[in-house]
């Protein structure tokens, strides 16, 4: 993204309000009334002529004529040309995608090759495959064919079956989707055709509550103003209604009577569902189109009888389909570290192979002259008449072959099965996180979601948290709490069961309950006092000055209807509900007028102009033609922006009182909002109208303007310690007010957006980093989405520490994607954040159990599993390696091929997975009680280089014990290879499983079953292998198991191998206990179980995370 040029354009567009201010205002107006603050001078409200002229909708609607000249031309190369109502011509030159969709990846024919191709994208599988292929060469055939292919085949098969099933489901849903019906204009009349036959350029008619079949530009709607309401739940999850507009130029046309033709030139298909750039040549005029003129596939048309549009993107080119991709895949830090250790293991592997092949070379050299006659070598083949070398390719080649063979034999040194186990364990961990009752949000009926499956363990290592403040912390649940009107404080709101309103016909009742202040209610009914007038205007402002669309919803009781206010902003909703309860019920809103039921009397207000809220002005204004023929401007906005335009000359007392109240409210943690009103005289109105006209022509580019609106809608973001303020309630846009918790030795840093831009643009980044890493909390206010990502990157690029970003809005997406772990809150602001996130949850506060409990467990489990898997495979490889030293370096294995293969598949795999999923080092209670325990993950205590090397040392000792005890015990006896092989197999398996058992912290029944079951299973497998008479080892196990020495060896190996580990473990646990150990002991012996489980103070948690 070219953010520099972006900001430049933004700045240009900022001039607009300034321009208007100079030309039109700074005028004091005497008839100030209103809520909190007294009067204001009012400016930059857009005007329209009374009634007749179409309404300008602020930045969204400021349109056509004014723009076309300066509007950025779309380059022809990048453009897509759509001839309206002429799909043949449209599709002639370019093959635009048809409207049939295909989310299925495979067809019957392509399944096998494609699925295999995709599976082999994983390096692990390629390694598997190469080894299996090498083993097929006769010279290198170390393992039997079956034994070498089995594991790979098994894994591939399981994955393929899973993929096939998923694809089958996708195909089925595609089919249903493609055969839905839509009305399309064919031969001058609308006919029903199937979705998949719709082509770009066709005109489509959609009726109310129907789903849109493709992305289309609105041509006309049933509303005379050209408004259509759509619900975008399926697209971004937002359930409120969005307004979209048809252009006036096309609105009047009826395509069934009058042939429409025109050319739309628009951008190429892209994923941005909030952006659209195009222009339309129609009737010789050029009209520009923006995001508000397009309706997207998957949305539903609501509250609009019908809408007609022309298809511009179809099928896979629709924005919905382009957005239909999963979360980007990330790799966990643990896995990255692990890969480093895997490189070490590869080096070991190569070293072992080199040792073997070099020794083999030396051996061959030493016995050069003997090879011909040696009974066990027999270099020459005498069976043919001319004597040839038998299976001997010269010294060099022999060494090379031995090298390759040793790679095959020692292949499991690289624990391929680990990758598969890790995936399984993560699935298990995800299962537990999703099923955790404590992370289920009742309000939104949403469970925890794991969208990315491969970074579970990162949750246990987070050091920096980046949180969006607005919405995320406050949940964006707004409620009207108190008001100060005309300098009077009304803040005694109480719950009330009172019915709001009785009017003609069915009783209308607001859907949401609001607390009522009795005094205020009484005043609002009596509007003839001066107080009453203030209150009256106040509530009209609340009811009118917004973009809320009222919807009537039926209830089981036919006499009662619920009124549901739909809107994009929760503040507005709260305010309109409040007004409704006080008897100012917004009943109807069209683009031209609104109807408010005032104390049972329906009044119609003409909307003459509307300037939607934007974050530069931080105000919204609406001009209403009132029933009493006066024209009034209502403004609401942030206190800073409102006080700057208040007429200070009037009633200073009232102003002072208001400001005091305001201050009192915000120190209670409430959001505050200031509302103002002014009556306009006809001359003022004229003047404003003309200035509006000139302003709109001066606009530079709408794309940029809307961009700036979006960027600035959200406010601040903070790093580190945040105090959850769930009680934050109504009134006042999320300014840069920030909650600081006073604390003894905690340092906080507050930066605002402008400074941040400066810092990020200059070389001060380093200083900022140094400074912020000394602080517990850093608050950044008023930052744009890209800056949020910039701050994340600032930390991420300079430390290895894990970062987590959490947010709920579209403006948090870049931050969520930038951080190591991105968490989306499925809250009120739509699902953009969730779609971009790795994990999603219903409430901010779930972060505590998520990180402290699940994150900790995931990390501990996964780190242990990785180390254990390294050990487990290396032990086995070393046992094989030691034996090779006694076979003149020829890679014979005493252990049968099948046991070698089954070792990591059956003998030892299940317990590590079970432990990886189930074992808990500490209970939930202790983890929540001592948030500091989370530090173990931050300090990488469970997996680090030191532990790896210690483990490898232990591995070395254990392999020596496992190999040399039988070797020495049977040295010079008549033991045969197969019997000794069985002993080694069993010794290794028992040792490895007991090793695991020693580290298990919590023994569940499943754990017992897995560990002891594995040992039993190994015995069974070894027996089965030994009852097959065609294998050389026939009956070997039963012979050796009949001797006492065998069992003495097993016992001796197990104890002897594990004693050093046990000693070190006991010593460290007793003399150098870490926090986890102490907490574990406390859990067992102190039983100080605090009854208030999960309810810990957030503070502790933040201190911990903030501290570096």
């Amino acid at each position: 993204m070219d953010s520099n040029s972006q900001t430049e354009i933004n700045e240009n567009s900022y001039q607009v309000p300034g321009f208007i201010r100079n030309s039109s205002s700074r005028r004091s107006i005497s008839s100030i009334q209103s809520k909190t603050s007294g009067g204001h001078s009012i400016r930059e409200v857009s005007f329209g002529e009374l009634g007749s002229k179409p309404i300008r909708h602020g930045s969204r609607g400021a349109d056509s004529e004014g723009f076309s000249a300066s509007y950025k031309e779309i380059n022809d190369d990048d453009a897509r040309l759509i001839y309206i109502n002429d799909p043949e011509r449209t599709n002639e030159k370019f093959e635009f995608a048809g409207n049939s969709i295909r989310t299925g990846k495979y067809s019957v024919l392509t399944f096998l090759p494609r699925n295999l191709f995709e599976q082999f994208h994983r390096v692990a599988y390629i390694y598997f495959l190469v080894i299996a292929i090498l083993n097929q060469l006769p010279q290198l055939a170390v393992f039997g064919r079956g034994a070498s292919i089995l594991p790979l085949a098994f894994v591939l098969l399981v994955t393929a079956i899973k993929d096939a099933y998923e694809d089958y489901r996708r195909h089925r849903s595609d089919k249903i989707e493609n055969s839905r019906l839509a009305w399309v204009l064919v031969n001058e009349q609308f006919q029903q055709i199937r979705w998949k036959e719709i082509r770009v350029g066709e005109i489509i008619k959609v009726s109310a509550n129907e789903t849109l079949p493709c992305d289309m530009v609105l041509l006309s709607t049933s509303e005379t103003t050209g408004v259509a309401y759509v619900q975008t739940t399926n697209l971004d999850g937002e359930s409120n209604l969005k307004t979209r507009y048809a252009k006036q130029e096309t609105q009047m046309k009826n395509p069934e009577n009058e042939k429409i033709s025109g050319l739309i030139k628009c951008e190429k298909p892209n994923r941005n569902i909030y952006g659209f750039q195009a222009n339309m040549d129609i009737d010789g005029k050029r009209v520009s189109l923006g995001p508000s003129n397009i309706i997207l596939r998957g949305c539903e048309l609501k509250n609009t009888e019908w809408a007609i549009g022309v298809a511009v993107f179809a099928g896979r080119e629709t924005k919905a389909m382009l957005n239909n991709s999963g979360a980007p895949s990330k790799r966990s830090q643990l896995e990255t570290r692990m890969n480093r250790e895997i490189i070490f293991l590869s080096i070991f592997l190569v070293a072992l192979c080199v040792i073997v092949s070099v020794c083999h070379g030396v051996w061959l050299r030493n016995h050069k002259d003997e090879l011909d006659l040696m009974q066990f070598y027999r270099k020459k083949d005498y069976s043919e008449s001319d004597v040839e070398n038998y299976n001997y390719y010269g010294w060099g080649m022999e060494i090379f072959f031995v090298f390759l063979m040793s790679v095959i034999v020692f292949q499991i040194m690289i624990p391929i099965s680990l990758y598969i186990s890790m995936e399984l364990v993560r699935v298990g961990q995800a299962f537990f996180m999703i099923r955790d009752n404590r992370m289920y949000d009742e309000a939104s009926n949403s469970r925890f979601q794991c969208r990315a499956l491969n970074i579970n363990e990162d949750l246990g290592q987070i050091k920096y948290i980046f949180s969006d403040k607005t919405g995320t912390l406050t949940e964006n649940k707004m409620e009207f709490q108190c008001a100060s009107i005309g300098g009077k404080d009304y803040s005694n709101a109480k719950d009330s069961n009172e019915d709001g309103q009785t009017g003609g016909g069915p009783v209308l009742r607001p859907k949401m309950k609001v607390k009522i202040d009795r005094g205020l209610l009484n005043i609002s009914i009596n509007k003839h006092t001066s107080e009453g007038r203030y209150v009256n205007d106040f509530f009209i402002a609340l009811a009118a000055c917004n973009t809320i669309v009222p919807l009537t919803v039926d209830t089981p009781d036919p006499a009662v209807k619920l009124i549901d206010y739909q809107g994009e902003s929760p503040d507005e909703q709260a305010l309109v509900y409040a007004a409704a309860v006080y008897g100012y019920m917004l009943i109807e809103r069209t683009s031209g007028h609104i109807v408010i039921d005032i104390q049972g009397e329906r009044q119609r207000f003409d909307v003459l102009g509307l300037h939607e809220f934007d974050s530069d002005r931080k105000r919204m204004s609406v001009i209403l033609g009132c029933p009493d023929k006066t024209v009034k401007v209502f403004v609401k906005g942030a206190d800073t922006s409102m006080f700057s335009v208040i007429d200070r000359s009037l009633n200073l007392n009232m102003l002072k009182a208001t400001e005091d109240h305001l201050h009192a409210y915000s120190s209670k943690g409430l959001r505050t909002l200031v509302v103002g009103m002014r009556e306009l005289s006809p001359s003022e109105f004229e003047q404003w109208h003309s200035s509006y006209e000139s302003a709109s022509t001066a606009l530079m580019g709408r794309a940029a303007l809307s961009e700036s609106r979006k960027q600035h809608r959200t406010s601040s973001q903070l790093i580190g310690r945040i105090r959850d303020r769930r009680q934050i309630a109504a009134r006042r846009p999320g300014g840069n007010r920030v909650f600081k918790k006073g604390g003894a030795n905690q340092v906080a840093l507050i930066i605002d957006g402008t400074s941040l831009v400066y810092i990020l643009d200059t070389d001060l980044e380093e200083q900022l980093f140094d400074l912020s890493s000394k602080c517990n909390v850093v608050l950044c206010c008023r930052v744009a989405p890209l800056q949020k990502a910039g701050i994340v990157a600032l930390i991420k690029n300079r430390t290895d520490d894990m970062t987590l970003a959490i947010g709920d809005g579209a403006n948090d997406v870049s931050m969520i994607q930038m951080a190591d772990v991105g968490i989306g809150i499925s809250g009120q602001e739509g699902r953009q954040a969730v779609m971009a996130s790795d994990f999603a949850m219903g409430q901010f506060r779930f972060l505590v159990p998520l990180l402290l409990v699940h994150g900790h467990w995931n990390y501990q489990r996964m780190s242990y599993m990785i180390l254990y898997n390294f050990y487990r495979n290396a032990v086995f490889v070393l046992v094989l390696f030691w034996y090779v030293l006694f076979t003149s370096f020829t890679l014979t294995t005493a252990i049968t091929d099948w046991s070698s293969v089954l070792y990591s598949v059956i003998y030892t795999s299940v317990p590590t997975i079970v432990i990886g999923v189930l074992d808990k080092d500490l209970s939930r209670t202790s983890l929540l009680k001592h948030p500091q325990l989370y530090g173990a993950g931050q300090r990488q205590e469970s997996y680090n280089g030191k532990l790896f090397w210690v483990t490898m040392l232990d591995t070395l000792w254990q392999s020596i014990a496992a190999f040399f005890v039988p070797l020495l015990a049977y040295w010079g006896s008549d033991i045969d290879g197969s019997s000794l092989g069985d002993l080694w197999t069993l010794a290794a398996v028992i040792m490895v499983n007991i090793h695991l058992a020693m580290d298990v912290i919590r023994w569940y029944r499943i754990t017992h079953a897995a560990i002891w079951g594995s040992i039993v299973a190994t015995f069974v497998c070894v027996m089965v292998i030994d009852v097959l008479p065609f294998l050389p080892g026939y009956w070997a196990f039963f012979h050796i198991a009949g001797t006492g020495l065998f069992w003495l060896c097993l016992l001796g190996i197990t104890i002897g191998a594990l004693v050093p580990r046990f000693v070190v473990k006991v010593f460290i646990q007793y003399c150098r206990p870490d926090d986890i150990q102490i907490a574990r002991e406390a859990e067992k012996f102190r039983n100080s179980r605090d009854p208030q489980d999960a309810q810990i103070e957030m503070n502790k948690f933040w201190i911990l995370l903030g501290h570096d």
Partner: protein
Amino acid sequence: MNSNTPSSSAGGPGSADLATPRRNSKRPKYSRFTQQELPACKPILTPKWVISTFLLISVVFIPIGVVSLLASRDVVEIVNQYETECIPEESRNDKVGFIQSSQDKNCSRTLRVPKDMKQPIYVYYQLDNFYQNHRRYVKSRSDQQLRNPGSENSTDACEPEEKTNSGSIVPCGLIAWSLFNDTYAFSRNNQQLAINKRGISWKSDRDHKFGKRVYPKNFQNGTLIGGGRLNTSKPLSEQEDLIVWMRTAALPTFRKLYGKIEMDLQTGDVIDVSLQNNYNTYSFNGKKKLVLSTTSWLGGKNDFIGIAYLTVGGLCFFLAMVFTLIYLIMPRQLGDPSYLSWNRNPGGHLAS
């Protein structure tokens, strides 16, 4: 996996359906399993446990070690290395030439019994430096052919000893080809000591692995003779020397059972061995030994396991003492929260 098509209703958490009664709550069903609250045993290594573990190990291991050592000491073993001595002095410069020649290979050795030996006395031959576990060697056999009279020709694995001009070799392969063929005869005071060569192989091998109707064919007919010949009139299941030989040894130094002397020998007995030194170990400097040994419950004479058990047992006893000392010198109350790092240096982590 995340393949929801956008139109398949995602059921967004909308305020729209707040009032409607929730039909399908997604609240996870409570179970102790899903909430990870299953009952569990959580053992902790308390001093008591640690010390008793070490003591237990030493209590178990030391007696076993003593018993094993005694058992091994009870075994009487006579080893006689003969590969050099059985070559006439004049041929010792060219041992391979001698062994390949058709000269008389007779050789007599004298063994002195150091201690009473109770029957059965096992007669082994021991080869050193013979890699019966060499890759080229172990693979060169056909278990099919050995077992099944019909699979005479399944000799793919047997190269380079799979067939001669007159047909497939039975038994084929390097292992069979290299059959050990020194023979021993024992006499005490000029009285023949009978050697029982029946039942020296595994019964399972005789019954299932080596066919009762498979007879040797074309065996040792090639240019290069590797070792012993077989009686073509006896089925493989009765060729016990072959069966023993074909149980390939695990290690380059190995013994194979030759037979059993079912007679007690007394201290000081002198046994004359008349042996045929036929087998060529000279080409790779292999050693040949004749071994007479009694057995114990633990097998042959090998002190290792006894020593190992004594060592581990002793070490564990020592460790038990060490840990007792540690626990006495540095007592620590388990689970005392004052040992938590943030309690040990309060504020430390905040200041950093």
